[in-house]
């Protein structure tokens, strides 16, 4: 199918393009950016006058809940939510039930996702069998089945010897290990340690839970040379450690979630379980450091940390409520909101959800590494078209995700996704859904 997106503001951070023009798509690939030759005969024309045309978003932390947690989310609902949010590629962690530690499970997930013809799904394999932190998984086989990296998800690897060997083994083959820095013993609270948690009588996760884990990881990276992606930082002190590690030249990248970018522990209010997320919401100075670190590139990517949670699991006392929030449909709006509030150039704002996350996944994307997250002739036509003037409040009931819990209920978002194209096919059209 030939598609022409006409007269939009084309913004592509990877090629530093920002101009009004046309985008031509044929056979799933971009065949013209900017000026399109007059003899291009589209079967469908999208008028993008007043709209922004950008690469499809790439989200590095999305729980699809399959297999095993289908009561909280299914591929159909969560992938529809992804494309409604302009997301064309997503990475999912291995903490499903069963855990993604066998090639067959990964193949099944990829197969199910592929048949839906919505966003592209890139699973992370478990770093250790069952995420138990004891036995390494068959990383080469899992990679062949489609894994783009290996992760312990939310389960900290307590045994430093195992983690050391896992990084050595991953480094042998050039695989990236994705770790959320959180000390297994210090990191068990339900809110960030601080005056608010103390006042509310909630068990606190101290900042040192993050910095101790980071210090350990950096030592292991120095020793093994392994490439590590640090998932969802939460503290100012943690970001400072990452800044130093990067300036030292260590092969590390990192991301932060929309929750920690916009909220603080004060938002917990009167024990609002929608604010129960991991990592926990920290204080103002941490949020300030997160926002500055994302702007200056210390933090590479912004993620939704999408975790659909069933209503029964959220209507519980705060500490018993299941952590997590739906975020796929809010990622772009919350990125733009941060960019506008902090006067971040649009190019950097959009890079945090396009080219930067693609660089994090790196060579594991295979042939797509050269064209995902950017708009280039000959590249895959994964495109998001949004209306920068359509602002409105977040309405949880209207989310396409099966999980209706979001800490951003009622927050104004500055934009709305109008069209999402994956491999040149219109996967989301706001005017028809």
């Amino acid at each position, binding site marked *: 199918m030939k598609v022409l997106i006409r007269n939009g503001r084309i913004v592509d951070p990877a090629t530093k393009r920002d101009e009004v023009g046309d985008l031509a798509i044929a056979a799933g690939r971009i065949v013209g950016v900017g000026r399109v030759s007059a003899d291009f005969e589209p079967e469908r024309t999208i008028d993008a006058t007043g709209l922004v045309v950008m690469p499809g978003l790439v989200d590095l932390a999305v729980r699809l809940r399959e297999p095993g947690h289908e009561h909280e989310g299914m591929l159909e609902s969560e992938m529809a939510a992804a494309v409604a949010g302009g997301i064309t590629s997503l990475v999912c962690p291995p903490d499903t039930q069963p855990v993604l530690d066998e090639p067959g499970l990964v193949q099944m997930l990829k197969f199910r996702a592929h048949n839906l013809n919505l966003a592209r799904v890139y699973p992370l394999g478990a770093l250790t069998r069952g995420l138990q932190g004891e036995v390494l998984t068959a990383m080469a086989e899992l990679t062949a089945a489609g894994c783009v990296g290996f992760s312990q998800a939310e389960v900290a690897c307590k045994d430093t010897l195992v983690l050391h060997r896992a990084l050595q083994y991953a480094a042998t083959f050039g695989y990236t290990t994705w770790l959320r820095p959180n000390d297994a013993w210090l990191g068990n609270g339900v809110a960030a340690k*601080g005056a608010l948690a*103390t*006042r*509310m009588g*909630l068990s606190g996760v101290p900042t040192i839970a993050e910095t101790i884990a980071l210090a350990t990881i950096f030592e292991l990276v120095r020793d093994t040379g392994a490439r590590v992606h640090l998932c969802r930082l939460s503290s100012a002190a943690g970001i400072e450690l990452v800044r130093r590690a990067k300036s030292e030249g260590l092969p590390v990248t990192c991301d932060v979630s929309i929750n920690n970018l916009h909220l603080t522990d004060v938002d917990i209010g009167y*024990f609002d379980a929608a604010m129960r997320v991991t990592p926990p919401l920290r204080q103002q100075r941490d949020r300030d450091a997160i926002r500055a670190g994302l702007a200056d590139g210390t933090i590479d990517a912004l993620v939704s940390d999408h975790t659909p949670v069933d209503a029964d699991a959220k*209507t*519980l*006392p705060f*500490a018993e409520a299941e952590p997590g929030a739906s975020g796929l449909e809010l990622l772009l709006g919350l990125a733009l909101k941060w960019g506008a509030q902090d006067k971040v150039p649009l190019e950097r704002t959009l890079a945090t959800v396009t080219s930067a996350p693609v660089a994090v996944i790196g060579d594991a994307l295979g042939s797509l590494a050269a064209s995902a997250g950017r708009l280039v002739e000959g590249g895959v036509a994964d495109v998001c078209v949004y209306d920068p003037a359509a602002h409105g409040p977040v309405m949880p009931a209207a989310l396409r995700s099966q999980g209706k819990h979001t800490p951003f209920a009622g927050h104004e978002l500055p934009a709305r996704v109008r069209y999402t194209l994956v491999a040149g096919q219109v996967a989301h059209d706001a005017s028809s859904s």
Partner: protein
Amino acid sequence: MQRNPQLNKSGELIHLLSIDGLPRAVLHQILDTAGTFLSVNDREVKKVPLLRGKSVFNLFFENSTRTRTTFEIAAKRLSADVINLDIARSSAAKGESLLDTIANLSAMHADMFVVRHSESGAPYLIAQHCAPHVHVVNAGDGRHQHPTQGLLDMYTIRHFKHDFTKLTVAIVGDIVHSRVARSDIHALTTLGVPEIRAVGPKTLVPGDLAAMGVRVCHDMKEGIAGADVIIMLRLQNERMSGAMLPSAAEFFKSYGLTPDKLALAKPDAIVMHPGPINRGVEIDSDVADGKQSVILPQVTFGIAVRMAVMSIIAGNSA
């Protein structure tokens, strides 16, 4: 931010969930009302008809005999029908969710829930999900609040010391895990106490308590020097071993209230304790049974304070 869920639009108390955020006028209203109920307890017929025909459900998701009994007595003296439910051993054990339990009891036409729960914030969840005419009283939630204990402590202090604005109050012991301490601290700051000290080792008295308006003291002598009121907290058994404290004996040596340590406080200082006391762990028997101890008057005042709370919230509507 949402409106404080324990107050209605006119600022009247409809639930008692926390002392945090309660206006000073509401605190005084409760203490004044409690004063009028004290005499009821001395009458031959110890009843007033304020809650006649109302059903008060004591929902104890965590075991407690003393607090539940005092709530039961208070409700009965207000002529309410009282139903005691030991949820820890019934519905929850069968896997029923908290809100399903509440929905079922609401269908039995409850007018008031008195709730104790092991998780901080559980009474808020109940208050947000029960019918608008139902009132909720927090009888202790996790480490968060125990507001009626805080109020009866204030009643006791006012009874013996009259003016809050000149007092030095020392709270000693396991403050980090104590809902009583949090309620006391909020009440004392609201009532204008100029010096509140939190006394204990760093494992039990973290530095960020200072943000609640207290002076953190890790030295017992410094903590109680010149105090008008000393509130000793119960040390839970599970804190006495492991990484919080090496032993009960060592805690007593450093922070136990003995006659010689008490001598550092003002000569007319009062000694309080929410009970049940651990003799020889946080308090010496000579102090617990001594002239300065007001531990038993606290219990008596507790009934009047709980009557005051229940009658006030039952009289206000959402």
